[in-house]
């Protein structure tokens, strides 16, 4: 297993996207270790009285040249609120890189489907696929236009499709309602997804029916993040597995969904 680290990073930018979302850019003091898309960090929310445990956050993007990594944070509670408020030059402590990320596909027909803060790992995944010669396409779902963040960044990597529940941008409805999903069969052979469990379950079923490979990233509640506490299990065809080390990315077929 690749080595894990506990290190302080320095915040070099906090870019607020919406009232709920921020992107933090963190600088490593030296040379960043290699990371893979779908992996996450356990981040200490110093100063949040109600966050004794670290908060798991996906690696949103990595820049090995500048030794920076990005986190996309949705402010949903005390821990993420504290982290969203970090300012330039603040320090933040990460235990990382954790977990098993997405696999490289055995096809170049891939679709990356994200919803909500579930888009977080897909930027890094898109970049990684592109570097490996695979052109990513993105399908991103949100409640409304104002909840869509960083579309430009995805656009730079590949084609982007959008759905919004209120129809304020792209196709109205959920990701599954987007036309690209109808013409899926011929176009896509791998589906990568991350987002609300309900969305991923629909995509898993969809993929099973079409015999398409589907990898999902789970967001179970975690205490240790390194396979020691067994708090984060998910039922699989081989019994209970830890989301933090056996996942967070799983083949949809491996899960008891």
């Amino acid at each position, binding site marked *: 297993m690749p080595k894990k680290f506990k290190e302080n990073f320095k915040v070099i930018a906090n870019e607020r996207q919406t009232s709920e979302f921020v992107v933090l850019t963190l600088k490593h003091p030296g040379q960043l270790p290699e990371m893979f898309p779908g992996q996450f960090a356990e981040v200490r929310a110093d100063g949040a009285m109600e966050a004794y*445990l670290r908060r798991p956050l996906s690696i949103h993007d990595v820049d090995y040249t500048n030794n920076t990594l990005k986190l996309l944070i949705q402010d949903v509670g005390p821990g993420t609120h504290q982290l969203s408020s970090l300012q330039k030059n603040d320090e933040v402590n990460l*235990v990382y890189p954790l977990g098993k990320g997405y696999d490289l596909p055995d096809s170049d027909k891939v679709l990356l489907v994200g919803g909500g803060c579930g888009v977080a790992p897909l930027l890094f995944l898109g970049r990684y696929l592109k570097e490996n010669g695979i052109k990513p396409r993105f399908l991103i779902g949100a409640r409304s236009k104002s909840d869509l963040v960083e579309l430009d960044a995805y656009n730079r990597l590949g084609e982007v499709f959008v759905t919004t529940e209120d129809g304020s941008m792209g196709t109205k409805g959920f990701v599954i309602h987007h036309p690209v999903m109808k013409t899926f069969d011929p176009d896509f052979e791998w589906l990568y997804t991350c987002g609300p469990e309900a969305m991923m379950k629909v995509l898993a079923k969809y993929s099973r029916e079409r015999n398409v490979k589907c990898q999902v990233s789970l967001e179970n*509640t975690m*205490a240790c993040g390194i396979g020691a*506490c067994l708090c984060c*299990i998910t039922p699989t065809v081989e019994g*209970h597995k830890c989301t933090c080390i056996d996942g967070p990315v799983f083949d949809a077929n491996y899960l008891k969904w």
Partner: protein
Amino acid sequence: MVDLSVTLGNINLKNPVMTASGTFGYGEEYSDFINIEELGGIIVKGTTATAREGNAYPRMAETPMGMLNAVGLQNKGVDAFVNETWPRIKKYDTNFFVNVSGSTVEEYIETAEKIASINEIPGIELNISCPNVKEGGMAFGTSCPSAIAVTEAVRKVYPGHLMVKLSPNVTDVTEIAKGVEGAGADSVSLINTLLGMAIDAETRKPILSTVTGGLSGPCVKPVALRMVWQVASSVDIPVVGLGGISSARDAIEFLLAGASAIQVGTANFREPDVTANIISGISDYMERHNISEISDITGGLIIEK
């Protein structure tokens, strides 16, 4: 130079800092963060006679300065420990203790016997406070007669160091401590988790799949410290203190209250290298206070009348 080594009955520990069962896996999980050979001991996760899947998800709820868990003894069973895990971890030069759990006296006996076959394992920690056991759902550890019964039974088949882990969910923990001392325990460790509960007001459902779960972390420290002090004042066997320890200062408080050694649990989740800091912090404290041996701290609480 300070000497951090301690003895726990017939066992020598490099220092009084051990890790608590269920919070440190088999030690390996933490080896990227600390040199686990520097630990006084590692109590591996609850091991049962046969493999268990544990409880359903969700198993964890965060609480103010602590957490509830409802893992429920998920483990591959004692045979897998003996045949798969032990060969992998035996290379580490530290004391591994096996936390022996079960639902029936027979199951405890079976597991303890199999662990006894591994010479390098100096002792077991008898976990008599797990839920879902015989006797009308009352855990072994909250009734004195059943705590004595299981300790006596395991004592007969287990020749190594027998540490019995006490439940804090009792009216009088000293009664049970004295009971298991009489039944042949070589030491007692305490506390296991306090029974607690968490509810999601929005969904109106319990957060844990099991409704209630075990509370641990800094929030329980005052209760743990009180119980360690009470027990250390009432038994003659060594006491291993735990419950919320997350700094050297915390560890020293437990030693002063009468603990011969301590265990660190939930704090490992927040700081995977916390035990290394605790060990060096104890050493600093001893130098600052001119104390040369841990045994000079143990029970050193000064109570003015």
